[in-house]
């Protein structure tokens, strides 16, 4: 806002990045230093510091891309970026909540910001549809969340996570509690786009502007999973066996449906939406094994998935802009037109497919390892088989780039895009070779 008044638009993005870097530094200062804020509504521990750090880094990567993304339409860029920063704030709250009210606040801040951003291309029918769908279905899910929180309050008498956990561990859990827990489960499954609550995801991802889709498929998914894990690990872990079967079925369905439906997609953003659903399935596999403490594996997997996705989206945004087309056929012949971009997208796709030596492989390996250690052998086997299916649609993009005929339109990018693509690529390979940098953080 200040920037808009003073018409300092050019330094907007650099200022944001500077600000975020500062926040990242302060974030890291809290490492190994548990603190409580706002009457114990927020608890900053290693889990939240690590995930918040990841969220800030991802935001920085996306904001660098936003400068050129909004070049043509920069009248409202400061509004867009402000809203995205609000979303980041919501995500950080979702990682550090210690009170149900804070959880709700965090989810709402994140979601409302994204309802607006999904519909931010005001003259595009698809964007309006995406924003509207997301808003309606998301609010409905938030309603479930609120009702669930209310029921749990009714059963336990507190919003505070520690008190609820004590109540659960004492036994004598009233049926109202179970209903409340189920409703919260439904709401969280919606937010992470797990089957059968995933129907909003492909349409919203397809309609939203590509940068916002990148933000949604990385930051929002990670935030939702972080909150999901924190909620269930801290409060509901003692009654986990009661929902084990449901979670198992949801996990299996998410993995299978995400991979199988992605096979027939023609639109690249929709393809990434369904692939995101399948990745959510793999993360659910980590969730369902949470009794053994799988936060590390989930963090590593999220980091690897997000970096590869941002790299892929950076290339995709350049291609969409040049070809004015968001289907997979827009990538035809990219191998000849711009070999660097094609190579970058290929490596990102290989990482998402889980091929060594990229970080995607190690992420999958950790999650499978943890799942087997906690006894989820059948689910891991299903996940493994579906990884094979996944290879097919990732390779569809690679094949389009290298084997199909190109038309003459040039595809080129600016320096900032190339920098982000290189960073994502280097991180994918570095984390694939030296994962101990990010493993065993907590």
């Amino acid at each position, binding site marked *: 806002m200040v920037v808009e008044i003073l018409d300092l638009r050019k330094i907007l993005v650099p200022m944001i990045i500077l600000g975020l870097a500062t926040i990242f530094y302060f974030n890291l200062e809290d490492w190994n230093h548990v603190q409580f804020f706002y009457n114990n509504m927020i608890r900053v521990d290693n889990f939240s510091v690590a995930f918040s750090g990841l969220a800030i880094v991802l935001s920085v990567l996306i904001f660098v891309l936003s400068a050129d993304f909004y070049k043509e339409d920069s009248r409202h860029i400061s509004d867009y970026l402000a809203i995205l920063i609000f979303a980041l704030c919501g995500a950080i709250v979702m990682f550090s909540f210690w009170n149900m009210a804070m959880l709700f606040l965090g989810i709402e801040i994140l979601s409302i910001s994204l309802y607006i951003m999904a519909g931010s291309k005001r003259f595009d029918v698809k964007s309006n549809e995406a924003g509207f769908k997301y808003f309606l279905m998301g609010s409905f899910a938030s309603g479930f969340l609120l009702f669930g929180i209310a029921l749990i309050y009714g059963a336990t008498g507190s919003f505070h996570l520690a008190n609820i956990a004590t109540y659960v561990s004492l036994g004598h859990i009233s049926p109202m509690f179970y209903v409340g827990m189920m409703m919260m489960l439904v709401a969280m499954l919606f937010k992470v786009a797990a089957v059968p609550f995933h129907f909003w995801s492909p349409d919203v991802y397809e309609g939203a502007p590509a940068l916002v889709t990148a933000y949604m498929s990385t930051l929002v998914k990670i935030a939702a999973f972080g909150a999901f894990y924190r909620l269930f690990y801290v409060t509901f872990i003692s009654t986990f066996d009661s929902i084990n079967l449901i979670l198992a079925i949801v996990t299996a369905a998410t993995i299978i449906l995400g991979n199988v439906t992605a096979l027939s997609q023609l639109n690249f953003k929709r393809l990434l939406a369904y692939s995101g659903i399948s990745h959510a399935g793999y993360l659910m596999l980590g969730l369902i094994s949470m009794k053994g403490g799988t936060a590390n594996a989930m963090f590593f997997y999220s980091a690897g998935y997000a970096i590869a996705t941002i790299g892929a989206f950076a290339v995709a945004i350049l291609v969409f802009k040049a070809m004015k087309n968001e289907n997979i056929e827009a990538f035809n012949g990219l191998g000849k037109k711009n070999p660097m971009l094609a190579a970058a997208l290929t490596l990102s796709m290989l990482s998402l497919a889980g*091929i060594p*030596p990229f970080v995607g*492989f*190690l992420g999958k390996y950790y999650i499978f*390892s943890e799942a*087997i250690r906690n006894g989820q052998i059948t689910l891991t086997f299903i996940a493994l088989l579906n990884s094979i299916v996944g290879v097919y649609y990732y390779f569809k993009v690679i094949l389009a780039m290298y084997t199909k005929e190109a038309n003459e339109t040039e595809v080129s990018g600016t320096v900032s895009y190339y920098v982000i693509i290189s960073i994502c690529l280097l991180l994918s390979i570095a984390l694939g070779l030296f*994962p101990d940098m990010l*493993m065993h953080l907590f």
Partner: protein
Amino acid sequence: MMTLLILFFPLVASLLVLFSGNKLASKVALFFSVIELAITFYAYLIYKQSGAESFYYFKEWIADPKISFHLGMDGLSLLMVLLTNFLTPIIILSAFNRTIENAKGYFALITFMQFALIGVFVAYDGLLYYIFWELALIPIYFIALRWGGPNRVNVTLKFFIYTLAGSLLMLFGFIMLYYYNPSHSFDIRDLYANASKVCSCNQSWLFWLFFAAFAIKIPIVPFHTWQADTYKEAPTQGTMLLAGIMLKMGTYSLLRWLVPIVPAGVAEWGPYAIVLCVVGIVYASVIAIMQKDLKKLFAYSSVAHVGLISAGIFALNMQGLQGSVVQMLAHGVNVVGLFFCADIIFNRTKSLNVDGLGGIRNVAPKFNTMFMIVVLGSVALPLTNGFIGEFLLLFGVYEYNTWLSVFAGLTIILGAVYMLRMFQNVMLGNTNETTSVFADLKWNETLVLGILAIVIIVMGVYPKPVFELAEPALKLILNNALIK
């Protein structure tokens, strides 16, 4: 340290080739691969002096679950590395005098593949081995995709997904083994030492998981359907890499990572596996007889030969194992020679159809001689390397079961049928208009085929070094396999 150098030198070479530009790429690649071969010879000399201990390299890599960067080269690995580093300069040399678009990418991928293949052969940690195994898939996929024949898109995708499916099953097996194993590690020493402690109820399906991956790679019938088309559509150098070295990854893995690690599984299911191998020999040979396309014929003959190698491994006696090692080396050399001859024929006559060719002997006598030597090596004539391997393998299978060896022995007869008939149709007889323009061998072709021919005969006459190198490793493997 030596192992580290041998492993990473091709990776560095690959990057240098990528930056050397299209004109120089082939020469730079050849230069570095010859240096790599020299280093490997030097390593062989060190091995003869001080044994395998000088080749260990161990570094902690990932803390939990424990994966270490553990490399080692015993006699068996050294032989495989020698094969890889010998064949790679030959493969690169075979690509000279051919126009290759975007040559720097092509040769960079070939040297990168060399890196991944060496990694498979020297890895002593299960998951490190798995990473190299999968890594080798990427360059060959792109080689086949960018430079392959007209139908390559679907064929290579089928190859990639089929092989990946097998690999993922193997990954599952490795992870399960990690948890069943009391020492909780992927390190090969721990896996060998605790092989008998894993309950045999689990070893059965672990066997099938590992066997699936290797059976798809080798390939063993009925997992062979990806192979013939992929060999046909891939460019010549790609096929040479696939058939010459990558396939040996599978048979080497049977020796190193299957037989000693799940011995109870092998004892229970080995008979079924060996029957599958022998069935594959006869089946593939019969199909090869019917083939009209030269590359497909060689592909099916390759399936038959490696079926015999695998059968020898499952026979679990010293002759079978020694025979498999010798035949792995022999087959690598022979099949590279065969596919190169096919490439020469295609380059001159633009046709690979056996019926349409004929009488090339009249116009290209040098090529005729070289081709004959390679064919005789493939048919396992005594005094060629193929004979040593096949004889030992059949002997090993005979000790296991007489009837199986009778059926396996059909490979000699059927092999002679399709190979000699192919040779007669292509080289002998009257020259027709397709073949009359056949120019005789160019310098690089003479060099390649000459070197291969010399190796075929020398190995056939003096195979002793191979036996000496392989024996300690094979003894260890056999001991582990026969522990109950």
